[in-house]
């Protein structure tokens, strides 16, 4: 049995030796180098782009501008919603006429050497007339308004004994994977074949988009995913460079390479998270949740990128979380501003919504005089109510909360952190402000509609899996190998997983939305089982036995009762060579199968985060000495990798909760353009030891392994739980107002300048909360 064991990662040996193959490690003979010229201002009319001086520089091969790609359509949405067309707001591959954020590509310079390309890019003269920059979502063009809900919300609030209202905001932050992007493209004109190295996440979708934009058939385009230096939602989407680099390679008739630098990455790669919620919850006297409503301003930056409405959609669908909710009304305004466009970042919509909802629960608990854990327990859906169909739509799928015992996990998390309140007392005795916070959340994973896998056995018995996923650090090569190994009854180290090659696996949908183990794993199960069936027929021929009498163990078929005569999978593969003795009439040669696994619904894992914080009363700096992630995963294929996802996710989420923010000045200039200003946590800021409590109590009924995705549960409630703990430590009556809780923000809250009083809704108040004044006001100018 390999599924369920923490086998060593297949990825490790090459990565530890420095032999990973990342995009910038790829080179093609004769390649030229691209440098992108980006907008230095947030909003301007482009009156002219003078390329003459740059083009005349020795070593420069070409300079192109928006005029050269004026007939190229903008980048389409990957998951379009027919009710909300975003065609008017899509990003062009090079700005033409107008620029809308600092960092927007305006021109591209190609040179013989990357240093020369950078020199020449500085010689491109931009004639720009600056225009007013919109920096607050409430002032921006609304690209789409989503409304969803159920029940009679007005009646629920009108009849409620207690209404709790708040305005809360999440600051703009992002995935920021450590490897910047990179691409190498080569075009073979004689064969009309385009090859691109450096794909990630969704290679087949991007192949289709690229082919469409280049006017080529998708089959003429081959993308290769590389080792990806972190993805987290941002890497691997189709960005302007994903068109420009291959297009330049074809136009120039030579390979072209582009490697992003960090300054570019911080303004070019999708940002995320920035939302303002005016959220309210209605409770009866006993603390039973009667209704929830929210009006959300979602700052999407300058364009609608490939994700389209994914983050808004998931924000609205997932806000109710794991609670029993009779009435829900939510409206989200997806607004455009003159900032870097936004997309998904690990736990999109859930990080934001969980923070907003759980802050309300904390405030309500204080108001009602009920322990915050007890208030949550009273309102969690019970096992008797699950599966629970929630009359909402998430990414085009109906929501069926598939399996779980939410109160059980809450109780387990509380028991595990039993001594933390006493520890907070001791910290307070030492002069710190200390508190314990708790947040519960619902996750979603395993988005379909399908995934595809090939399992191929060669005559030596070695196995290859052609997966539709990509390697982003999550350990997919190991996990899919374990799944195949279990079905084939061979050791997992005999199995090589080949990811993200669009010729080898043209039917894969990619690695995102915590779907690779759930949906990709399901496809591997089906393909491996089909291979076993084929091999069984062949072994039966060779052993002159009835296939039904054969047993498979340790990769060998034997006839029941006579263990000496055996046919291994490798021998079956050899016998299935053309003309081989193991072939039936009209059978396809070789021992391989391609299978698709489809799902109708997502599967919904859930969890609890608990944190203890200690705040320096002098500086407002928040330390997090203890942190627990409790998470129900259905079935852990590799427990160590699940824990790694949860621990790493918590650290990443702590960054957005306490430190990281893309702030802008009043002219729309980004203020975080280096790692000196964009403060990703180091080992000094992260939790020394994140505890994990991984349960396998409620396997998903929707896939053959019972798995639920584990990629996001470590981050989902990080903002919520740290806000809860800071709130407890400071003894706030209201919410913390906004994330991140930087030392200066926490110092303000300690001084009582926060939203403590102002955002507390009145008893039975029925109106939407007011726009914030002072206190939690946004800081975007």
């Amino acid at each position, binding site marked *: 049995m390999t599924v369920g064991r923490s086998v*060593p990662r297949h990825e490790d040996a090459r*990565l530890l030796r420095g032999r990973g193959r990342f995009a910038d*490690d790829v080179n093609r003979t004769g390649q030229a180098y691209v440098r992108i010229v980006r907008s230095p201002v947030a909003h301007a009319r482009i009156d002219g782009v003078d390329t003459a001086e740059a083009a005349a520089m020795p*070593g420069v091969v070409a300079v192109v501008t928006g005029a050269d790609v004026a007939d190229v359509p903008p980048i389409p949405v990957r998951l379009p919603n027919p009710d909300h067309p975003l065609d008017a707001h899509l990003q062009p591959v090079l700005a033409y006429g107008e620029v809308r954020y600092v960092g927007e590509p305006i021109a591209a310079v190609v040179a013989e050497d990357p240093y020369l390309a950078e020199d020449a890019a500085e010689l491109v003269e931009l004639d720009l007339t600056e225009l007013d920059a919109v920096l607050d979502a409430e002032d921006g063009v609304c690209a789409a308004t989503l409304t969803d809900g159920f029940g009679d919300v007005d009646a629920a609030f009108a009849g409620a004994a207690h209404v709790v209202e708040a305005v809360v905001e999440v600051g703009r932050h992002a995935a920021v994977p*450590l490897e910047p992007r990179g691409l190498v493209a080569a075009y073979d004109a004689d064969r009309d074949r385009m090859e691109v190295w450096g794909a990630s996440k969704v290679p087949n979708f991007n192949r289709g988009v690229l082919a469409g934009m280049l006017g080529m058939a998708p089959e003429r385009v081959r993308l290769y995913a590389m080792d990806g230096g972190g993805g987290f939602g941002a890497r691997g989407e189709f960005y302007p460079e994903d068109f420009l680099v291959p297009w330049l390679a074809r136009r120039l008739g030579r390979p072209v390479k582009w490697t992003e630098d960090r300054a570019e990455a911080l303004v070019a790669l999708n940002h995320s998270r920035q939302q303002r919620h005016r959220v309210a919850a209605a409770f009866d006297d006993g603390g039973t949740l009667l209704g929830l409503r929210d009006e959300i301003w979602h700052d999407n930056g300058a364009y609608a990128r490939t994700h389209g409405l994914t983050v808004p959609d998931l924000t609205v669908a997932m806000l109710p979380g794991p609670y029993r909710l009779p009435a829900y009304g939510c409206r989200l305004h997806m607004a455009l501003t003159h900032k870097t466009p936004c997309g998904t970042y690990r736990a999109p919509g859930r990080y934001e919504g969980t923070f907003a909802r759980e802050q309300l629960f904390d405030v309500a608990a204080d108001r009602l005089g009920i322990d915050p854990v007890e208030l949550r327990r009273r309102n969690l859906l019970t096992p008797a109510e699950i599966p629970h169909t929630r009359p909402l739509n998430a990414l085009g799928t109906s929501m069926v909360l598939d399996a779980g015992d939410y109160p059980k996990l809450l109780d387990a998390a509380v028991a595990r952190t039993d001594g933390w309140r006493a520890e907070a007392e001791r910290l307070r005795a030492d002069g710190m402000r200390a508190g314990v916070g708790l947040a519960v959340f619902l996750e979603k994973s395993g988005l379909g509609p399908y995934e595809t896998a090939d399992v191929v056995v060669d005559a030596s018995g070695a196995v290859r899996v052609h997966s539709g996923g990509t390697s982003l650090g999550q350990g997919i090569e190991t996990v899919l190998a374990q799944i195949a190994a279990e079905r084939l009854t061979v050791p997992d180290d005999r199995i090589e997983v080949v990811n993200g090659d669009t010729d080898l696996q043209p039917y894969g949908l990619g690695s995102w939305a915590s779907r690779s183990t759930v949906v990709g794993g399901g496809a591997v199960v089906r393909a491996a089982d089909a291979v076993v069936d084929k091999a069984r027929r062949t072994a039966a021929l060779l052993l002159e036995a009835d296939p039904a009498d054969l047993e498979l163990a340790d990769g060998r078929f034997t006839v029941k009762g006579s263990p000496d005569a055996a046919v291994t999978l490798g021998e079956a593969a050899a016998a299935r060579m053309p003309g081989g003795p193991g072939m039936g009439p009209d059978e396809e040669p070789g021992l391989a199968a391609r299978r698709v696994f489809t799902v109708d619904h997502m599967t919904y894992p859930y969890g609890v985060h608990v944190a203890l914080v200690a705040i320096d009363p002098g500086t407002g700096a928040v330390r997090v000495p203890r942190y627990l992630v409790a998470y129900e995963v259905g079935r852990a294929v590799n427990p160590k990798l699940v824990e790694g996802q949860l621990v*790493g996710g918590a650290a990443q989420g702590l960054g957005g909760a306490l430190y990281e923010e893309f702030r802008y000045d009043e002219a729309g200039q980004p203020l975080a353009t280096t*790692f000196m200003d964009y403060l990703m946590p*180091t080992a000094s800021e992260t939790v020394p030891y994140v505890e994990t409590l991984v349960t396998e109590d409620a396997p998903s009924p929707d896939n053959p392994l019972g798995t639920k995705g584990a990629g996001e549960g470590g981050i989902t409630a990080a903002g919520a739980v740290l806000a809860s703990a800071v709130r407890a430590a400071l003894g706030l009556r209201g919410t913390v107002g906004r994330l991140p809780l930087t030392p200066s923000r926490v110092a303000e809250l300690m001084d009582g300048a926060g939203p403590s009083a102002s955002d507390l809704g009145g008893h039975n108040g029925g109106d939407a909360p007011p726009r914030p004044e002072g206190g939690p006001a946004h800081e975007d100018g």
Partner: protein
Amino acid sequence: MTGDDPLTDPHQVSVRVNGTPHELTVESRRTLADMLRHDLGYTGTHLGCEHGICGACTVLVDGEPARACLMFGVQADGREVRTVEGLADGEELSDLQRAFSERHGLQCGFCTPGFLMLAEAFLAENPDPSEDEIRDVVSANLCRCTGYQGICEAIADTAAARRAGGAP
């Protein structure tokens, strides 16, 4: 832009990398990282920020950790550089590399070479570090995947094993 431009003046560089001598000509402005990666093929040295914060490009220059993005190739002239490719003994991973795998101290692996080189220099200088000292040195570099837990544990394990087995 060649010839009399001080940025692009050619320089002869003689450098040993992981014990192998190399002779090459580089422009003054070419970084050590680019020289290692693109001129000499040591692509295990990664560039995450090119301004000295993330530490993914950490290599050892005469045994001392250095940000290869902040050094010019020409500054390595006459010196001994050690990169991640020099850690394993043939196909055999070093004890530190094995500990990173055992402790799940890497996920995407992009920052890993920098952490390995940082830890290698640190353990040479301080074979008996405290947990706080380990955390302090690990905070010199950035990792976005692991939360640093496995990295710290791997370094502690390696230190303990080396002490138990005698200093290497």
